[in-house]
């Protein structure tokens, strides 16, 4: 599902992001790429390190392969980042990347921010995640 045109508030569903069937898709800030994200662990765990899957497609729906990606995030309201240093090192094929080292310390509103360097341009996508 395409959650929004450009990083607007999530629907705040308890199932959002929990597994592939509840993946959330948004457009990058330029609108040129679609980022789809979901947690491999269901339900999304608290206080435990786990992995997520990020899929990137261009406007025509073609998977973006071997992109250089960075991830960070945290709780904007608390102005702190993740308690870990998550990384994206593995390309899984079909435009999918493994996001490792994610840990949520508490329920509440979190952001996961992705930056992709492509064609000498920086593409950003920010996912808004409410954990219950």
């Amino acid at each position: 599902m395409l959650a929004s045109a450009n990083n607007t508030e999530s629907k705040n569903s308890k199932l959002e992001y929990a597994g592939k069937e509840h993946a959330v898709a948004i457009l990058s800030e330029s609108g040129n790429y679609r980022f789809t994200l979901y947690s491999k662990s269901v339900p999304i765990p608290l206080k435990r390190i786990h992995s997520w899957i990020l899929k990137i497609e261009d406007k025509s729906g073609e998977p973006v392969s071997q992109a250089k990606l960075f991830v960070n995030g945290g709780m904007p309201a608390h102005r702190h980042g993740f308690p870990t240093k998550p990384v994206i090192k593995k390309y899984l094929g079909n435009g999918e990347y493994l996001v490792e080292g994610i840990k949520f310390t508490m329920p509440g509103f979190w952001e996961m921010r992705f930056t992709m360097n492509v064609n000498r341009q920086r593409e950003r996508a920010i996912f808004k995640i409410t954990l219950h």
Partner: protein
Amino acid sequence: MRKRVLTTFSGIVIFLCTGIVFTQANDAVAWNEAERASISRLSIHALGESPELKVNRVAKDAKAAELGHHLFFDTRLSINGKVACASCHLPEKYFTDGRKTAKGINSVNRNAPTVVGINHSNWLFLDGRTDSLWSQAMQPLENEHEHGTNRSHVVHVVYKDKKLHQLYEASFGAMPDLLNKARFPEQAGPVKDRAASYAWQNMKKSDQEIITGIFVNLAKAIAAYELKLNPSPARFDHFAQALEKNEAKAAEILNKQERAGLKLFLNKGKCNICHNGPMFSDFSFHNIATPQLNAKKYDWGRYKGVNKLLRSKFNCRSQYNDDPEKNCDEIKYIIRKREHTIGLFRTPSLRNITKTAPYMHAGQYKTLKEVIDHYVDPPKTLVGTSDLIPFPIDLTKQEKQQLEAFLGTLDSDIDAAQKWLTSPH
């Protein structure tokens, strides 16, 4: 006339009853859905399994806990025969020592945290320089300021003591023959003491490994004992349980001031940002601008803790970790950057906080009142960036008192048989 009096009296009764119902109704609507969820997550009944159970094969072994109990109180495990684990972790002081900074052989620069319930943390020591309870137990023994001894000495004490020797073998199997003093000197270890260090360097690597293996086992036994020490449910926990079923009943468990304090804890006081989860701690690291003990020699906290952890031969990745899966993700994804780790210390549990004064990593504050004042008016941090800057907290004098009253509802006994709370000697 009599009838009129009765009617009037009945009216008063009805009024009074209505008043009571009204008060209860106020209590009933006092907690919104988010607050109820937070209260439920803070309850001790939500406490999960200790991470130590995976990495320590004797974590639940009764004989190992008994051995650990003996070792915890044994002053022979120090260079001067006067210092035991229990010297800084006194049962009568909720396993702290009441001092600003701990004192073993010499003074150290940190406050002695309680042992009770600490088995639920992934990180040990205030800077998280070890990642298991057992690897924590090793360090004070060989620290020149704490027990000031060395691993060979510790191993030989157990080897020569009939009871401890038997307890060891009941949990870990036969102890090797250590009678050959040329191979196994009584004072040897990778420590600062020159003679012991020299003796250690002259030992064969295979003999060093024998001593280290036994030393690790003894630390695992101490951890097995420490796993026995957990807080009992407190009044807050009874309140949290009651709130799920019967709000009126819950209101009888905490008084008005304490309930107001809980509200502040969850909302205006912003305490729940770090003091969350059933132990009232995220067991993570924060810079809260506590005054430095020594203006010339800052305590860098987590920054040095991370470096020590990664260099340690006894961290999660070591051969001594008993978890066959060796899930060391906490190390794999650890934050190392200086700007993100400098001046950070582990969030303490607030359970039984009234019993563990003085407070902060170096006992900077004598009372909880001073601690609350610190959050309301924090000083400028001398090291790194304070996590408190984005969170100005404005509390009135009355609100501070309410918050302190709430913290008192976290008082409880230790959930362990009396024999574990006294010396076995």
